[in-house]
């Protein structure tokens, strides 16, 4: 099975803190992996380095065989990214936002693709809505549609279900699962919702204080820490952070 992502020895220090301290992370094609950890563990900084938006102080990143930052544009052609906290551009309708991003990913005539993608996530009626008038749940769904229009080989989601109602979170989860099954896309997701993670991901990577402290299936990781589930592992690690 080919690798879609290979990061070695990632280190990132900001002025007063080392956010990421020697992280290794690989993803195989079609693999669904969660990057977990308490606040400040280094998840978002790691994601941003994997996407080429932040340069590591040390270490290397290769996405779909393309080294970053040298071949960032080529690498990103096969990657989709959405974050629950990111708004959509102002003064554009949903279809217009999706059309612009489809073009950025090389799709010249995205109309039918946009229709199908909106339907997949059950939001076909939002096409004509102004992007800034959406609820946070609708915005998240549109963000994921934006990230998946070009059928990426690697889908990266940062907190996709944060602050969503349970029914919308379920809609997101089912849509992402279906997309990964249909397209064979690998998934790298950060989340504080351990139920989401256990349902969607086959592997979890726990970060604490910028280091990888566990890597395996949800059951393996829970066993390693002597806990019953990921929720308890999370609380254990967060508690250790406070000591």
């Amino acid at each position, binding site marked *: 099975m080919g690798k879609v992502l290979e990061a070695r020895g990632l280190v990132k220090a*900001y002025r007063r803190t080392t956010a990421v301290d020697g992280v290794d992370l690989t993803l195989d094609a079609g693999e669904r992996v969660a990057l977990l950890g308490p606040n400040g563990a280094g998840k978002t900084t790691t994601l941003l380095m994997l996407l080429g938006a932040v340069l590591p102080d040390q270490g290397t990143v290769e996405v779909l065989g393309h080294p970053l930052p040298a071949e960032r544009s080529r690498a990103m052609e096969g990657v989709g990214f959405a974050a629950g906290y990111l708004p959509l551009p102002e003064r554009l309708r949903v279809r217009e936002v999706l059309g612009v991003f489809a073009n950025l990913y090389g799709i010249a005539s995205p109309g039918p693709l946009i229709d199908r993608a909106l339907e997949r996530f059950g939001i076909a009626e939002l096409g004509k809505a102004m992007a800034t008038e959406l609820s946070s749940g609708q915005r998240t769904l549109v963000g994921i549609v934006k990230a998946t229009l070009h059928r990426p080989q690697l889908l990266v989601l940062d907190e996709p279900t944060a602050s969503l109602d349970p029914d919308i979170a379920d809609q997101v989860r089912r849509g992402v699962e279906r997309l990964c099954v249909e397209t064979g896309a690998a998934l790298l997701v950060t989340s504080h919702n351990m139920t989401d993670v256990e349902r969607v991901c086959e592997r979890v990577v726990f970060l604490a204080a910028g280091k990888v402290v566990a890597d395996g299936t949800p059951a393996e990781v829970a066993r390693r820490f002597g806990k019953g589930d990921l929720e308890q592992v999370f609380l254990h690690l967060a508690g250790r952070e406070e000591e």
Partner: protein
Amino acid sequence: MPVIDGLRVRAMVRRHAYVQKRAPQRWFDLAVWPCVDTVIWGSIGAFVDQQGGAARSGAAYMLSGILLMHVVYQANVSMATGFMDETWSRNLLNLMVSPLREIELLASLMLVSLVRLVVGLSVVALAAWGLYAFDVTSAGIGLVPVIAVLMLVGWTVALLVIALMLRFGSGAEILTWGILFVVIALSGAFYPVDAIPGALRPVCELLPSTHAFEAARLLLDGEPMPWVRLAAAAAGLAVCIPAAVVFLLRMLHLFRARGYVTRYS
């Protein structure tokens, strides 16, 4: 693989066209402000003419000055605010993790500013003709290279401002207008460099825009194409543009190295 992908540039141009279409206040810069400027400077010129103290037509000088100032203004402000649109709507991270290259983003901003420049100039030209019977074409075809120089000056200032925004965040946005008006003042847009205090003149001579404005005045006086002035402007641009690009690339590297993108996410 081409350095610039036309589809991606087109997408970004379209993105800005939607904003222009749906933000009525954006038309202020394009239609109202040029008219206001034309009235202010045209009337000052007309007043000077009425006093009879000037050997040359004050109104013509002022109106050509405001027309050409708007070349620099529109080129700079349109490009810089186009970048600000991405920071204001926190869209920068979305773009940075897409295949869009930096040069494609800049190319799209230049194209958008070119269109806005044509609209803004047309408004000034029509207002000058309608209100003061000043025909901008009276300076002849020689104005074309002058306009080209000033457009490049505007874009160069915009590159500098974008670089400063990458380094210092949204607080640097005000420099879009601040740097522009320093350049306009030192370039003698409405007066010959001789009228500028002596201590500042060496700085003025270094600016490509100074030579462009001077060339425009010579053309208005009926002089032949001022090649020496245009060559001096071109030489200045040959230094300023690469310097601005290098500065922008350094600030972009710093932006990525220090993780400043999180300011906009």
